[in-house]
């Protein structure tokens, strides 16, 4: 009992009395914890951030009906399985004719939704209810077309409309509000563009859920985006993880060197205790107790700092907040403790065989 009390007194006094050098040790360890927790948290979050960036490329899955069109029930069932982070754009597409008889692909869509989903569209013009692809717009003007006809019904093209530049197939299409196409041309939704959030395995799982909820749909992933995303996410993550490892390893070595030299500086304490009759085991337990207390404190300070830094980096690069990953905390905690332990045990082992008298005499 007395031994335990003595141990506690020694530990507390040592921590309180040697403020300067303890502060240096805690600072060094906290640095290690800060750097590694910031980089680890960023690495764990990187896939999610990059996947989110890939949503800028628009739809990654296209649904088409097995029959002529989707029923209202199909669309309701679809919306039930979509997650809130997904974007959906229903389209009713028809090949109509202009009043001069030219074929034209008309896409009925919620235009506000489509604009959000396709942020690369460059729109110029006032009326956002009629969006005409640049190439089609030129063709309509050349032929003097003012209306689109489908199955005997006519939708006129207002002189004030928006022109779409994309450098893609959209430039040959005419976009109208979905309700207009559905009501006037009596064409229900026959294509759904989905921008599913998450990484490849999640998207595939969600695709399965969608297909079982809407059995009348064919799903076609947009290969080019899925493949580019897989490549960029995989490579980016590897590069960041390896860099993290190298940096953390270097910091750990630096901290190790600093701490072990500060323990060696205390060889006089060690010698005095030994001369007063302390056993090797007792000595090691006192030093380790000290080290553990400092390492835990440093790990916590470092973890909090690291999260702050990671959050700042995430915000300034990806413009969105960080998602915490629980794995970073135990890794940082164990890593900091391990470095602290090694840096105190190794010098203590080296001092083990030395006679206290020699140290105290000043050798």
């Amino acid at each position: 009992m007395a031994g335990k009390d003595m141990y506690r007194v020694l530990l507390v006094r040592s921590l309180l009395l040697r403020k300067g050098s303890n502060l240096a040790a805690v600072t060094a360890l906290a640095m290690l914890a800060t750097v590694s927790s910031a980089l680890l948290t960023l690495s764990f979050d990187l896939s999610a951030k990059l996947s989110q960036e890939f949503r800028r490329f628009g739809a990654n899955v296209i649904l088409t009906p097995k029959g002529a069109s989707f029923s209202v029930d199909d669309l309701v069932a679809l919306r039930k399985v979509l997650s809130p982070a997904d974007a959906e754009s229903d389209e009713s597409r028809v090949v109509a004719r202009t009043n001069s008889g030219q074929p034209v692909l008309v896409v009925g869509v919620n235009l506000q939704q489509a604009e959000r989903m396709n942020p690369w569209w460059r729109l110029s013009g006032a009326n956002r209810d009629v969006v005409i692809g640049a190439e089609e717009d030129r063709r309509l003007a050349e032929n003097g077309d003012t209306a689109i006809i489908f199955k005997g019904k006519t939708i006129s093209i207002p002189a004030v409309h928006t022109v779409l530049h994309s450098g893609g197939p959209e430039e040959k299409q005419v976009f109208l509000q979905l309700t207009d196409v559905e009501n006037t041309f009596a064409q229900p939704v026959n294509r759904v563009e989905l921008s599913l959030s998450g990484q490849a395995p999640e998207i595939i799982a969600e695709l399965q859920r969608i297909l079982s909820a809407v059995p009348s749909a064919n799903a076609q992933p947009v290969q080019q985006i899925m493949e580019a995303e897989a490549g960029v996410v995989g490579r980016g993550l590897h590069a960041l993880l390896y860099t993290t490892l190298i940096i953390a390893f270097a910091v750990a070595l630096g901290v190790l060197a600093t701490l072990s030299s500060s323990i060696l500086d205390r060889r006089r304490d060690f010698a005095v205790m030994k001369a007063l009759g302390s056993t090797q085991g007792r000595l090691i337990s006192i030093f380790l107790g000290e080290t553990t207390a400092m390492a835990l404190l440093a790990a916590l300070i470092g973890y909090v700092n690291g999260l702050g830094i990671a959050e700042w980096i995430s915000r300034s690069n990806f413009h969105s907040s960080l998602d915490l990953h629980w794995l970073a905390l135990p890794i940082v905690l164990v890593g900091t403790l391990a470095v602290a332990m090694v840096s105190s045990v190794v010098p203590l082992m080296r001092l083990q065989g030395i006679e206290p008298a020699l140290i105290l005499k000043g050798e």
Partner: protein
Amino acid sequence: MLLRLLYQSFHRQQRRKLLACAAISLGLTVLTATVAVNNDIGDRMNLELRSLGANLVVRPAVETSGPAASDGPVLRESNLPKMKHIFWAHNILGYAPVLFSTTTLSNGKAEPLIGTYFQKPVNTGDAIFITGVSKTNPWWRVKGNWPADDSDHVLVGADLATSLNLAPGQSLRLQNGTELHVDGILSTGGDEDHAIVAPLAMVQRIAHRPDAVDQVFVSALTKPEDDFARRDPRTMSGPVLERWMCSPYANTIARQIDLAVPGASTQQVRRVAQSEGILLRDVDGLFLMVTIAALLTAMLAVGAAMSAAIMERQQEIGIMRSLGATNSAIALLFALEAIVLALIGGGIGFATGSLLSQQLGMSVFQTVITPRPLLIPFVLLASVAVTLAGSWSAIRRAVRFDPAAVLRSH
């Protein structure tokens, strides 16, 4: 005298100097490896993003003075190799011309026929450049074989093949009696799934449009767009225009293609070009910050080692001071020592860092990150700066020691 002091210091304290040197090379190893990876990541990601396909599309320029000629395109296939003569030719990784037509099958139905290059060797005048959809549309999947570009064999889109019940190796009969050999079934997820895709030369012959091309898809490595990139080159003058033309922005490359290929009007495929620009900028930003973290780390590691090394020499400093050395002389000695250590440690750090980054390049990108000897002076400079910065506070503390107190304590 100073040189002798310096020499003696290195000669007599070899172990201590070795430790400091090890710390510096460790710091510089990390810095070199991180900078090399960071330097490379933008380019690698850019290449990776090229699997998104073409980011530029070349179309025939529309005559603004009157209605365009209705009898087809003004783009000529024979003019396309000129694209590989522009300033940023090396950034053009591939291009695929496209000619649209239709053909009537033996069942009486008209089906779209698309002519293009699959993997065609093109003579650009000074080299053979292999290009085609295999470069610009790497996500195209073929069951069976790709046809040769000089053959009359075709690919049939997956949806069309299902409805016609075709398999690779069979033939497709046209209304005029011609038999087309189907080498493979193509799935792309796009319009080509409903079409017949054939070598360009064959479609030009069938459509009676020799040398004609409707559009060209170009896959180019570009620099992420910034405000400067978006400016209109027509409003620029002399040196500003030159600077604009000398940056591989998508717009710059497009403009150079327009100037090189007669009748061309090149635009960004905005879905790819705009979105990848933002992505690249964000990834670059992230890795820049990681590099800064590595720099700070290197500084801390070196700083800790240097200050420990200087603190151990309090006695020596005390003796020097009591023998009349001035503060600046002591500071100079330590600074010179630091510089020598930094140069040696920096050299070793550069070598190990380059080796490390090569290993990293192999495991992350499956390609070697070539060491850049050009970086050596920068690494050495960084090494000296980091070491001096790390030793600064220790040197300052060292010259403030009271010599009497230091000497008495031992």
